[in-house]
Protein backbone atom coordinates (compact mmCIF):
# COMPACT_ATOMS: atom_id res chain seq x y z
CA UNK A 1 0.00 0.00 0.00
CA UNK A 2 2.74 2.42 1.01
CA UNK A 3 6.24 2.19 -0.31
CA UNK A 4 9.18 4.43 0.49
CA UNK A 5 12.08 4.00 -1.89
CA UNK A 6 15.59 5.12 -0.99
CA UNK A 7 14.58 8.47 0.41
CA UNK A 8 17.07 11.16 1.44
CA UNK A 9 16.76 14.43 3.35
CA UNK A 10 19.38 16.85 4.64
CA UNK A 11 19.01 20.03 6.65
CA UNK A 12 22.03 22.07 5.64
CA UNK A 13 25.01 19.91 6.53
CA UNK A 14 23.01 17.57 8.70
CA UNK A 15 21.92 14.41 6.91
CA UNK A 16 18.73 13.40 8.67
CA UNK A 17 17.63 10.59 6.38
CA UNK A 18 20.13 8.88 4.12
CA UNK A 19 18.48 6.07 2.28
CA UNK A 20 15.37 4.88 4.08
CA UNK A 21 13.19 2.14 2.64
CA UNK A 22 9.83 1.01 3.90
CA UNK A 23 7.00 -1.22 2.77
CA UNK A 24 3.56 -1.23 4.33
CA UNK A 25 1.01 -3.73 3.06
CA UNK A 26 -2.75 -3.09 3.18
CA UNK A 27 -4.17 -3.88 6.62
CA UNK A 28 -0.75 -4.26 8.20
CA UNK A 29 0.53 -2.70 11.41
CA UNK A 30 4.08 -1.61 10.83
CA UNK A 31 6.46 -0.06 13.35
CA UNK A 32 9.58 2.01 12.80
CA UNK A 33 12.14 1.82 15.60
CA UNK A 34 15.57 3.25 16.18
CA UNK A 35 17.42 5.46 18.65
CA UNK A 36 16.70 9.16 19.09
CA UNK A 37 17.92 11.04 16.06
CA UNK A 38 17.65 8.02 13.80
CA UNK A 39 15.36 10.01 11.52
CA UNK A 40 11.99 8.45 12.31
CA UNK A 41 10.04 11.68 12.60
CA UNK A 42 11.78 13.10 9.53
CA UNK A 43 10.82 9.97 7.62
CA UNK A 44 7.18 10.41 8.65
CA UNK A 45 7.30 14.07 7.67
CA UNK A 46 8.62 13.04 4.28
CA UNK A 47 5.81 10.53 3.84
CA UNK A 48 3.00 12.93 4.74
CA UNK A 49 4.47 15.93 2.94
CA UNK A 50 5.49 18.23 5.81
CA UNK A 51 8.99 17.94 4.34
CA UNK A 52 10.08 17.47 0.74
CA UNK A 53 12.76 14.83 0.14
CA UNK A 54 16.05 15.64 -1.60
CA UNK A 55 15.94 12.29 -3.36
CA UNK A 56 13.80 9.17 -3.46
CA UNK A 57 10.13 8.39 -3.81
CA UNK A 58 7.01 7.77 -1.80
CA UNK A 59 4.34 5.67 -3.46
CA UNK A 60 0.83 5.15 -2.09
CA UNK A 61 -1.44 2.58 -3.72
CA UNK A 62 0.81 2.56 -6.74
CA UNK A 63 0.72 6.33 -7.16
CA UNK A 64 3.71 8.60 -6.74
CA UNK A 65 2.88 11.08 -3.95
CA UNK A 66 6.39 12.45 -3.48
CA UNK A 67 6.41 16.25 -3.05
CA UNK A 68 2.63 16.66 -2.97
CA UNK A 69 1.55 19.26 -0.39
CA UNK A 70 0.30 17.76 2.90
CA UNK A 71 -3.37 18.52 2.25
CA UNK A 72 -3.27 16.63 -1.05
CA UNK A 73 -1.58 13.64 0.55
CA UNK A 74 -4.19 13.64 3.28
CA UNK A 75 -6.95 13.58 0.69
CA UNK A 76 -5.39 10.48 -0.87
CA UNK A 77 -6.18 8.65 2.38
CA UNK A 78 -3.18 9.11 4.65
CA UNK A 79 -3.74 10.81 7.99
CA UNK A 80 -1.20 11.33 10.70
CA UNK A 81 -0.73 12.25 14.31
CA UNK A 82 2.21 14.14 15.67
CA UNK A 83 4.79 13.36 18.29
CA UNK A 84 4.36 16.69 20.01
CA UNK A 85 0.66 16.81 20.55
CA UNK A 86 -0.86 18.87 17.85
CA UNK A 87 -4.47 19.70 18.52
CA UNK A 88 -6.49 22.92 18.50
CA UNK A 89 -6.22 23.99 22.14
CA UNK A 90 -8.82 26.77 22.01
CA UNK A 91 -11.53 24.68 20.37
CA UNK A 92 -13.69 22.14 22.12
CA UNK A 93 -12.96 18.44 21.89
CA UNK A 94 -15.98 18.08 19.62
CA UNK A 95 -14.83 20.86 17.29
CA UNK A 96 -11.32 19.40 17.08
CA UNK A 97 -12.66 16.23 15.54
CA UNK A 98 -15.42 17.96 13.60
CA UNK A 99 -12.91 20.13 11.75
CA UNK A 100 -11.24 16.97 10.46
CA UNK A 101 -14.55 15.39 9.46
CA UNK A 102 -15.65 18.61 7.73
CA UNK A 103 -12.44 18.62 5.77
CA UNK A 104 -12.90 15.00 4.79
CA UNK A 105 -16.47 15.71 3.63
CA UNK A 106 -15.28 18.80 1.72
CA UNK A 107 -17.61 20.97 3.78
CA UNK A 108 -15.02 23.30 5.24
CA UNK A 109 -15.91 26.15 2.89
CA UNK A 110 -19.65 26.14 3.63
CA UNK A 111 -20.28 29.75 4.64
CA UNK A 112 -23.87 30.47 5.47
CA UNK A 113 -25.14 27.47 7.38
CA UNK A 114 -24.46 26.66 11.01
CA UNK A 115 -21.67 24.21 11.69
CA UNK A 116 -23.79 22.17 14.06
CA UNK A 117 -25.78 20.88 11.10
CA UNK A 118 -22.72 19.11 9.73
CA UNK A 119 -20.74 15.99 10.54
CA UNK A 120 -22.32 15.62 13.97
CA UNK A 121 -23.00 11.88 13.88
CA UNK A 122 -19.61 11.02 12.45
CA UNK A 123 -17.84 13.17 15.02
CA UNK A 124 -19.76 11.66 17.92
CA UNK A 125 -19.09 8.15 16.63
CA UNK A 126 -15.35 8.79 16.57
CA UNK A 127 -15.36 10.33 20.05
CA UNK A 128 -17.27 7.31 21.27
CA UNK A 129 -14.74 4.93 19.72
CA UNK A 130 -11.83 6.59 21.49
CA UNK A 131 -13.76 7.12 24.72
CA UNK A 132 -13.82 10.92 24.74
CA UNK A 133 -17.54 11.45 24.15
CA UNK A 134 -17.99 12.50 27.77
CA UNK A 135 -15.52 15.37 27.28
CA UNK A 136 -17.00 16.55 23.95
CA UNK A 137 -17.90 20.00 25.27
CA UNK A 138 -14.60 20.68 27.05
CA UNK A 139 -11.92 22.96 25.65
CA UNK A 140 -9.18 20.76 24.25
CA UNK A 141 -6.46 22.71 26.05
CA UNK A 142 -7.90 21.60 29.38
CA UNK A 143 -7.39 17.86 28.76
CA UNK A 144 -4.71 15.79 30.47
CA UNK A 145 -1.67 14.76 28.45
CA UNK A 146 -2.98 11.26 27.87
CA UNK A 147 -6.39 12.52 26.78
CA UNK A 148 -4.75 14.97 24.40
CA UNK A 149 -2.83 12.15 22.77
CA UNK A 150 -6.09 10.26 22.44
CA UNK A 151 -7.78 13.32 20.98
CA UNK A 152 -4.92 13.63 18.53
CA UNK A 153 -5.69 10.09 17.42
CA UNK A 154 -9.39 10.92 17.17
CA UNK A 155 -8.66 13.96 14.98
CA UNK A 156 -6.58 11.70 12.77
CA UNK A 157 -9.51 9.30 12.43
CA UNK A 158 -11.77 12.19 11.41
CA UNK A 159 -10.22 12.08 7.98
CA UNK A 160 -11.47 8.53 7.37
CA UNK A 161 -7.99 7.50 6.32
CA UNK A 162 -6.93 4.17 4.87
CA UNK A 163 -3.48 4.56 6.33
CA UNK A 164 -2.71 6.31 9.59
CA UNK A 165 0.78 7.40 10.48
CA UNK A 166 1.28 7.76 14.22
CA UNK A 167 4.39 9.43 15.60
CA UNK A 168 4.90 8.01 19.09
CA UNK A 169 1.22 7.59 19.96
CA UNK A 170 1.90 6.61 23.59
CA UNK A 171 4.82 8.91 24.43
CA UNK A 172 4.46 10.26 27.95
CA UNK A 173 1.43 8.14 28.74
CA UNK A 174 0.95 6.21 31.97
CA UNK A 175 1.12 2.40 31.69
CA UNK A 176 -2.70 2.20 31.89
CA UNK A 177 -3.14 4.81 29.17
CA UNK A 178 -0.57 3.05 27.04
CA UNK A 179 -2.44 -0.23 27.44
CA UNK A 180 -5.71 1.44 26.47
CA UNK A 181 -4.10 3.06 23.43
CA UNK A 182 -2.61 -0.24 22.29
CA UNK A 183 -6.01 -1.89 22.60
CA UNK A 184 -7.54 0.98 20.67
CA UNK A 185 -5.01 0.80 17.85
CA UNK A 186 -5.54 -2.94 17.54
CA UNK A 187 -9.29 -2.50 17.57
CA UNK A 188 -9.10 0.16 14.86
CA UNK A 189 -6.96 -2.05 12.68
CA UNK A 190 -9.39 -4.93 13.15
CA UNK A 191 -12.73 -3.09 12.94
CA UNK A 192 -11.98 -0.50 10.32
CA UNK A 193 -9.41 -2.40 8.32
CA UNK A 194 -7.00 0.47 8.88
CA UNK A 195 -3.41 0.19 7.89
CA UNK A 196 -1.19 1.60 10.61
CA UNK A 197 2.35 2.88 10.51
CA UNK A 198 3.82 4.07 13.77
CA UNK A 199 7.06 4.74 15.54
CA UNK A 200 7.58 4.20 19.23
CA UNK A 201 10.26 3.92 21.87
CA UNK A 202 8.31 1.45 23.97
CA UNK A 203 9.72 -1.85 22.69
CA UNK A 204 7.16 -3.92 24.51
CA UNK A 205 4.41 -2.14 22.64
CA UNK A 206 6.22 -2.40 19.33
CA UNK A 207 6.78 -6.13 19.59
CA UNK A 208 3.23 -6.88 20.76
CA UNK A 209 1.41 -4.75 18.20
CA UNK A 210 3.44 -4.67 14.99
CA UNK A 211 3.40 -7.33 12.30
CA UNK A 212 6.46 -5.88 10.67
CA UNK A 213 9.25 -3.76 12.11
CA UNK A 214 11.63 -1.44 10.31
CA UNK A 215 14.83 -0.52 12.13
CA UNK A 216 16.45 2.84 11.43
CA UNK A 217 19.88 3.96 12.44
CA UNK A 218 21.56 7.23 11.53
CA UNK A 219 19.02 7.94 8.85
CA UNK A 220 19.27 4.58 7.17
CA UNK A 221 17.08 1.51 7.07
CA UNK A 222 18.95 -1.40 8.61
CA UNK A 223 16.28 -4.04 8.20
CA UNK A 224 12.53 -4.52 7.81
CA UNK A 225 11.15 -7.87 8.82
CA UNK A 226 8.72 -9.74 11.08
CA UNK A 227 9.19 -9.07 14.83
CA UNK A 228 10.80 -12.44 15.55
CA UNK A 229 13.34 -12.02 12.79
CA UNK A 230 14.08 -8.45 13.85
CA UNK A 231 14.56 -9.55 17.45
CA UNK A 232 17.12 -12.13 16.34
CA UNK A 233 18.79 -9.60 14.11
CA UNK A 234 18.84 -6.95 16.81
CA UNK A 235 21.15 -9.06 18.93
CA UNK A 236 23.61 -9.12 16.07
CA UNK A 237 23.15 -5.40 15.50
CA UNK A 238 23.65 -4.67 19.16
CA UNK A 239 26.92 -6.51 19.18
CA UNK A 240 27.91 -4.78 15.99
CA UNK A 241 26.81 -1.26 16.86
CA UNK A 242 27.92 -1.35 20.45
CA UNK A 243 25.08 -0.23 22.67
CA UNK A 244 21.91 1.25 21.36
CA UNK A 245 19.75 2.33 24.22
CA UNK A 246 16.45 1.53 22.59
CA UNK A 247 17.32 -1.51 20.56
Amino acid sequence: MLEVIDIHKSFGDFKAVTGANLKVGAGEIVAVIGPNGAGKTTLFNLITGQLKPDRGNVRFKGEDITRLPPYRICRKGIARSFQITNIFPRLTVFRNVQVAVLSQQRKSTVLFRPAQLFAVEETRAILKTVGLLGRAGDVAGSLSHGDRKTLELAVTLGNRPELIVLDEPTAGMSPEETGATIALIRQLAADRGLTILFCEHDMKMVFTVARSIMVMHQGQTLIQDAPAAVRENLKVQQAYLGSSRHA
Partner: protein
Amino acid sequence: MLKNLIQPRALAAAAVVGLALLALPLAVPRFYVYMFSLIFVNALLAMSLNFVVGHGGLYQFHHGVFYGIGAYTVTLMLTKTALPAWVGFAAAPLAAALAGLLIGVFCVRLSKLYFGMLQISLGSLIWAVAFRWYSLTGGDDGIHDIPIPQFLSAPRPVYYFILVMLGLSLAVLYLILKSPFGSTLRAIRDNPERCEALGIHVRRHQLIAIGIATFFAGVAGVMFVVVESSVFPGLLFWVLSLEIFIMCLLGGWFTFAGPMLGAAIIVSLKTFVGVYTEYWTTIMGIILILLIFFLPEGVMGFLLEKFSDRSDRG
Protein backbone atom coordinates in the same frame (compact mmCIF):
# COMPACT_ATOMS: atom_id res chain seq x y z
CA MET B 1 -32.04 26.51 14.99
CA LEU B 2 -31.74 30.10 16.18
CA LYS B 3 -31.55 28.83 19.73
CA ASN B 4 -28.53 26.74 18.86
CA LEU B 5 -26.87 29.55 16.98
CA ILE B 6 -26.91 32.20 19.65
CA GLN B 7 -27.20 32.01 23.42
CA PRO B 8 -30.50 33.43 24.72
CA ARG B 9 -28.59 35.85 26.97
CA ALA B 10 -26.51 37.20 24.10
CA LEU B 11 -29.61 37.49 21.95
CA ALA B 12 -31.39 39.42 24.69
CA ALA B 13 -28.42 41.74 25.15
CA ALA B 14 -28.23 42.35 21.40
CA ALA B 15 -31.96 43.09 21.30
CA VAL B 16 -31.73 45.60 24.16
CA VAL B 17 -28.76 47.39 22.60
CA GLY B 18 -30.45 47.34 19.20
CA LEU B 19 -33.67 48.86 20.55
CA ALA B 20 -31.74 51.50 22.50
CA LEU B 21 -29.85 52.46 19.36
CA LEU B 22 -33.10 52.63 17.37
CA ALA B 23 -34.55 55.04 19.92
CA LEU B 24 -31.37 57.08 20.39
CA PRO B 25 -31.85 59.76 17.67
CA LEU B 26 -35.17 60.72 19.24
CA ALA B 27 -33.49 61.51 22.53
CA VAL B 28 -30.12 63.13 21.81
CA PRO B 29 -28.89 66.24 19.94
CA ARG B 30 -27.85 66.09 16.29
CA PHE B 31 -24.17 66.04 17.10
CA TYR B 32 -24.49 62.74 18.95
CA VAL B 33 -26.53 61.25 16.15
CA TYR B 34 -23.62 62.10 13.87
CA MET B 35 -21.05 60.74 16.30
CA PHE B 36 -22.88 57.47 16.70
CA SER B 37 -23.09 57.09 12.94
CA LEU B 38 -19.33 57.46 12.86
CA ILE B 39 -18.99 54.88 15.63
CA PHE B 40 -21.06 52.41 13.60
CA VAL B 41 -18.82 52.92 10.57
CA ASN B 42 -15.72 52.24 12.63
CA ALA B 43 -17.43 49.37 14.42
CA LEU B 44 -17.99 47.54 11.16
CA LEU B 45 -14.46 48.36 10.05
CA ALA B 46 -13.02 46.88 13.25
CA MET B 47 -15.31 43.85 13.02
CA SER B 48 -14.19 43.17 9.48
CA LEU B 49 -10.54 43.41 10.50
CA ASN B 50 -11.08 41.15 13.48
CA PHE B 51 -12.58 38.52 11.21
CA VAL B 52 -9.12 37.87 9.77
CA VAL B 53 -7.00 38.90 12.74
CA GLY B 54 -8.88 37.53 15.74
CA HIS B 55 -10.59 34.59 14.08
CA GLY B 56 -8.16 33.95 11.22
CA GLY B 57 -4.83 34.68 12.91
CA LEU B 58 -3.55 36.68 9.93
CA TYR B 59 -1.41 39.80 10.27
CA GLN B 60 -3.73 42.05 8.33
CA PHE B 61 -1.67 45.19 9.01
CA HIS B 62 -3.07 47.46 6.33
CA HIS B 63 -6.80 46.95 6.48
CA GLY B 64 -7.49 50.67 6.05
CA VAL B 65 -6.59 50.42 2.36
CA PHE B 66 -9.68 48.35 1.63
CA TYR B 67 -11.87 50.77 3.57
CA GLY B 68 -10.39 53.57 1.47
CA ILE B 69 -10.89 51.64 -1.76
CA GLY B 70 -14.54 51.16 -0.85
CA ALA B 71 -14.95 54.85 -0.07
CA TYR B 72 -13.15 56.04 -3.22
CA THR B 73 -15.00 53.57 -5.44
CA VAL B 74 -18.44 54.74 -4.36
CA THR B 75 -17.28 58.37 -4.54
CA LEU B 76 -15.93 58.05 -8.07
CA MET B 77 -19.06 56.21 -9.20
CA LEU B 78 -21.25 58.98 -7.74
CA THR B 79 -19.20 61.90 -9.03
CA LYS B 80 -17.82 60.67 -12.37
CA THR B 81 -20.59 58.44 -13.71
CA ALA B 82 -24.30 58.80 -14.31
CA LEU B 83 -25.06 55.35 -12.96
CA PRO B 84 -27.69 55.05 -10.26
CA ALA B 85 -26.35 55.43 -6.73
CA TRP B 86 -27.03 51.83 -5.70
CA VAL B 87 -24.63 50.60 -8.39
CA GLY B 88 -21.87 52.54 -6.70
CA PHE B 89 -22.98 51.30 -3.29
CA ALA B 90 -22.76 47.71 -4.54
CA ALA B 91 -19.57 48.14 -6.53
CA ALA B 92 -17.55 49.55 -3.64
CA PRO B 93 -17.47 46.42 -1.43
CA LEU B 94 -16.80 44.29 -4.50
CA ALA B 95 -13.88 46.53 -5.51
CA ALA B 96 -12.51 46.33 -1.97
CA ALA B 97 -12.83 42.54 -1.94
CA LEU B 98 -11.17 42.30 -5.35
CA ALA B 99 -8.24 44.40 -4.14
CA GLY B 100 -8.14 42.30 -0.97
CA LEU B 101 -7.95 39.08 -2.97
CA LEU B 102 -5.32 40.45 -5.35
CA ILE B 103 -3.05 41.59 -2.54
CA GLY B 104 -4.00 38.50 -0.54
CA VAL B 105 -2.87 36.08 -3.22
CA PHE B 106 0.67 37.31 -2.71
CA CYS B 107 0.44 37.75 1.04
CA VAL B 108 -0.87 34.28 1.98
CA ARG B 109 2.24 32.78 0.44
CA LEU B 110 4.23 34.39 3.22
CA SER B 111 4.03 33.56 6.86
CA LYS B 112 3.06 35.69 9.80
CA LEU B 113 5.03 38.94 10.02
CA TYR B 114 6.10 38.80 6.37
CA PHE B 115 2.44 38.63 5.42
CA GLY B 116 1.87 41.90 7.28
CA MET B 117 4.95 43.60 5.88
CA LEU B 118 4.10 42.79 2.28
CA GLN B 119 0.57 44.00 2.86
CA ILE B 120 1.82 47.31 4.25
CA SER B 121 4.06 47.75 1.19
CA LEU B 122 1.40 46.93 -1.38
CA GLY B 123 -1.21 48.93 0.52
CA SER B 124 1.08 51.95 0.68
CA LEU B 125 1.41 51.82 -3.10
CA ILE B 126 -2.36 52.20 -3.38
CA TRP B 127 -2.24 55.07 -0.90
CA ALA B 128 0.47 56.75 -3.00
CA VAL B 129 -1.68 56.46 -6.12
CA ALA B 130 -4.67 58.03 -4.37
CA PHE B 131 -2.41 60.73 -2.94
CA ARG B 132 -0.77 61.68 -6.25
CA TRP B 133 -3.41 61.16 -8.92
CA TYR B 134 -4.94 64.62 -8.66
CA SER B 135 -7.13 64.43 -11.75
CA LEU B 136 -8.93 61.33 -10.50
CA THR B 137 -8.82 61.40 -6.72
CA GLY B 138 -8.23 65.05 -5.94
CA GLY B 139 -4.89 64.12 -4.39
CA ASP B 140 -4.43 65.11 -0.77
CA ASP B 141 -7.42 67.46 -0.99
CA GLY B 142 -9.69 64.50 -1.45
CA ILE B 143 -13.20 64.87 -2.86
CA HIS B 144 -15.91 66.76 -1.04
CA ASP B 145 -19.64 67.44 -1.36
CA ILE B 146 -20.21 64.02 -2.84
CA PRO B 147 -23.76 63.83 -4.20
CA ILE B 148 -25.19 61.09 -2.01
CA PRO B 149 -28.85 60.19 -2.62
CA GLN B 150 -31.42 62.77 -1.51
CA PHE B 151 -33.07 60.57 1.10
CA LEU B 152 -29.75 60.47 2.98
CA SER B 153 -29.40 64.21 3.37
CA ALA B 154 -30.22 64.59 7.07
CA PRO B 155 -28.41 63.10 10.08
CA ARG B 156 -31.34 60.98 11.21
CA PRO B 157 -31.98 59.07 8.00
CA VAL B 158 -28.22 58.64 7.66
CA TYR B 159 -28.10 57.25 11.19
CA TYR B 160 -30.81 54.69 10.50
CA PHE B 161 -29.35 53.74 7.15
CA ILE B 162 -25.93 53.15 8.73
CA LEU B 163 -27.47 51.24 11.65
CA VAL B 164 -29.32 48.90 9.29
CA MET B 165 -26.19 48.34 7.18
CA LEU B 166 -24.22 47.57 10.33
CA GLY B 167 -26.92 45.20 11.60
CA LEU B 168 -27.10 43.28 8.34
CA SER B 169 -23.32 43.04 8.07
CA LEU B 170 -23.02 41.80 11.63
CA ALA B 171 -25.65 39.14 11.02
CA VAL B 172 -23.77 37.88 7.98
CA LEU B 173 -20.40 37.93 9.75
CA TYR B 174 -21.90 36.11 12.72
CA LEU B 175 -23.43 33.45 10.51
CA ILE B 176 -20.12 32.90 8.73
CA LEU B 177 -18.24 32.57 12.00
CA LYS B 178 -20.71 29.90 13.14
CA SER B 179 -20.46 27.99 9.86
CA PRO B 180 -18.15 25.08 9.02
CA PHE B 181 -15.92 27.67 7.38
CA GLY B 182 -15.79 29.66 10.63
CA SER B 183 -14.79 26.59 12.63
CA THR B 184 -12.15 25.69 10.10
CA LEU B 185 -10.82 29.25 10.06
CA ARG B 186 -10.33 29.23 13.84
CA ALA B 187 -8.67 25.84 13.58
CA ILE B 188 -6.28 27.30 11.01
CA ARG B 189 -5.60 30.23 13.35
CA ASP B 190 -4.74 27.84 16.17
CA ASN B 191 -2.65 25.45 14.12
CA PRO B 192 -2.18 25.87 10.37
CA GLU B 193 0.27 22.98 10.01
CA ARG B 194 -2.13 20.56 11.63
CA CYS B 195 -4.93 21.76 9.36
CA GLU B 196 -2.78 21.16 6.33
CA ALA B 197 -2.26 17.58 7.57
CA LEU B 198 -6.04 17.25 7.84
CA GLY B 199 -6.51 17.84 4.15
CA ILE B 200 -7.44 21.51 4.51
CA HIS B 201 -6.20 23.84 1.80
CA VAL B 202 -5.03 26.48 4.29
CA ARG B 203 -4.18 29.26 1.82
CA ARG B 204 -7.50 28.97 0.04
CA HIS B 205 -9.36 29.32 3.32
CA GLN B 206 -7.22 32.29 4.32
CA LEU B 207 -7.89 33.91 0.98
CA ILE B 208 -11.65 33.44 1.33
CA ALA B 209 -11.43 35.01 4.79
CA ILE B 210 -9.52 37.98 3.38
CA GLY B 211 -12.13 38.34 0.64
CA ILE B 212 -14.92 38.46 3.24
CA ALA B 213 -13.07 40.85 5.55
CA THR B 214 -12.15 43.27 2.78
CA PHE B 215 -15.69 43.14 1.39
CA PHE B 216 -17.01 44.40 4.71
CA ALA B 217 -14.22 46.98 4.93
CA GLY B 218 -15.62 48.19 1.60
CA VAL B 219 -19.11 48.32 3.09
CA ALA B 220 -17.69 50.43 5.92
CA GLY B 221 -16.11 52.67 3.26
CA VAL B 222 -19.53 53.26 1.69
CA MET B 223 -20.96 54.00 5.12
CA PHE B 224 -18.22 56.57 5.72
CA VAL B 225 -19.08 58.39 2.49
CA VAL B 226 -22.75 58.41 3.42
CA VAL B 227 -21.93 59.99 6.79
CA GLU B 228 -19.24 62.45 5.71
CA SER B 229 -19.96 63.14 2.01
CA SER B 230 -16.23 63.32 1.46
CA VAL B 231 -13.12 61.19 1.01
CA PHE B 232 -9.41 61.89 1.46
CA PRO B 233 -6.23 59.80 1.21
CA GLY B 234 -5.99 59.52 4.99
CA LEU B 235 -8.55 56.73 4.72
CA LEU B 236 -5.89 54.61 3.03
CA PHE B 237 -3.01 55.68 5.24
CA TRP B 238 -1.31 53.14 7.48
CA VAL B 239 -1.95 55.21 10.60
CA LEU B 240 -5.63 54.52 10.20
CA SER B 241 -4.91 50.80 9.80
CA LEU B 242 -3.06 50.92 13.09
CA GLU B 243 -6.01 52.64 14.69
CA ILE B 244 -8.36 49.86 13.58
CA PHE B 245 -5.93 47.30 14.92
CA ILE B 246 -5.96 49.06 18.29
CA MET B 247 -9.76 49.05 18.29
CA CYS B 248 -9.65 45.26 18.02
CA LEU B 249 -6.94 44.97 20.69
CA LEU B 250 -8.80 47.27 23.02
CA GLY B 251 -12.11 45.53 22.62
CA GLY B 252 -10.82 41.98 22.65
CA TRP B 253 -9.96 39.75 19.74
CA PHE B 254 -11.63 36.60 20.86
CA THR B 255 -15.07 37.97 21.43
CA PHE B 256 -17.53 38.55 18.63
CA ALA B 257 -18.59 42.06 19.64
CA GLY B 258 -15.36 43.24 21.30
CA PRO B 259 -14.00 45.22 18.35
CA MET B 260 -17.21 47.28 18.22
CA LEU B 261 -16.67 48.30 21.82
CA GLY B 262 -13.09 49.20 20.96
CA ALA B 263 -14.32 51.31 18.04
CA ALA B 264 -16.84 53.10 20.27
CA ILE B 265 -14.17 53.95 22.84
CA ILE B 266 -11.63 55.17 20.28
CA VAL B 267 -14.11 57.25 18.28
CA SER B 268 -15.58 58.87 21.40
CA LEU B 269 -12.17 59.66 22.84
CA LYS B 270 -11.01 61.01 19.50
CA THR B 271 -14.08 63.22 19.24
CA PHE B 272 -13.90 64.63 22.75
CA VAL B 273 -10.13 64.78 23.17
CA GLY B 274 -9.81 66.19 19.65
CA VAL B 275 -11.65 69.27 20.87
CA TYR B 276 -8.84 70.08 23.33
CA THR B 277 -5.71 68.92 21.52
CA GLU B 278 -4.42 68.16 18.07
CA TYR B 279 -2.08 65.55 19.46
CA TRP B 280 -4.63 62.82 19.32
CA THR B 281 -1.99 60.21 18.43
CA THR B 282 -0.22 60.89 21.73
CA ILE B 283 -3.36 59.96 23.57
CA MET B 284 -3.66 56.82 21.49
CA GLY B 285 -0.07 55.92 22.34
CA ILE B 286 -0.81 56.32 26.03
CA ILE B 287 -3.92 54.17 25.67
CA LEU B 288 -1.87 51.49 23.99
CA ILE B 289 0.70 51.56 26.79
CA LEU B 290 -2.00 51.36 29.45
CA LEU B 291 -3.58 48.51 27.54
CA ILE B 292 -0.36 46.54 27.54
CA PHE B 293 0.25 47.19 31.23
CA PHE B 294 -3.20 46.72 32.64
CA LEU B 295 -4.73 44.16 30.30
CA PRO B 296 -1.72 41.91 29.90
CA GLU B 297 -3.89 38.84 29.54
CA GLY B 298 -5.97 40.29 26.79
CA VAL B 299 -3.03 41.35 24.71
CA MET B 300 -0.05 39.39 25.88
CA GLY B 301 -2.02 36.22 26.49
CA PHE B 302 -3.05 36.33 22.89
CA LEU B 303 0.43 37.08 21.64
CA LEU B 304 1.96 34.26 23.62
CA GLU B 305 -0.70 31.76 22.83
CA LYS B 306 -1.19 32.59 19.18
CA PHE B 307 2.00 33.98 17.87
CA SER B 308 4.46 31.82 19.74
CA ASP B 309 6.90 29.97 17.56
CA ARG B 310 5.46 26.67 16.48
CA SER B 311 8.40 25.53 14.43
CA ASP B 312 9.77 23.49 17.32
CA ARG B 313 7.42 20.60 16.80
CA GLY B 314 8.68 17.21 15.76
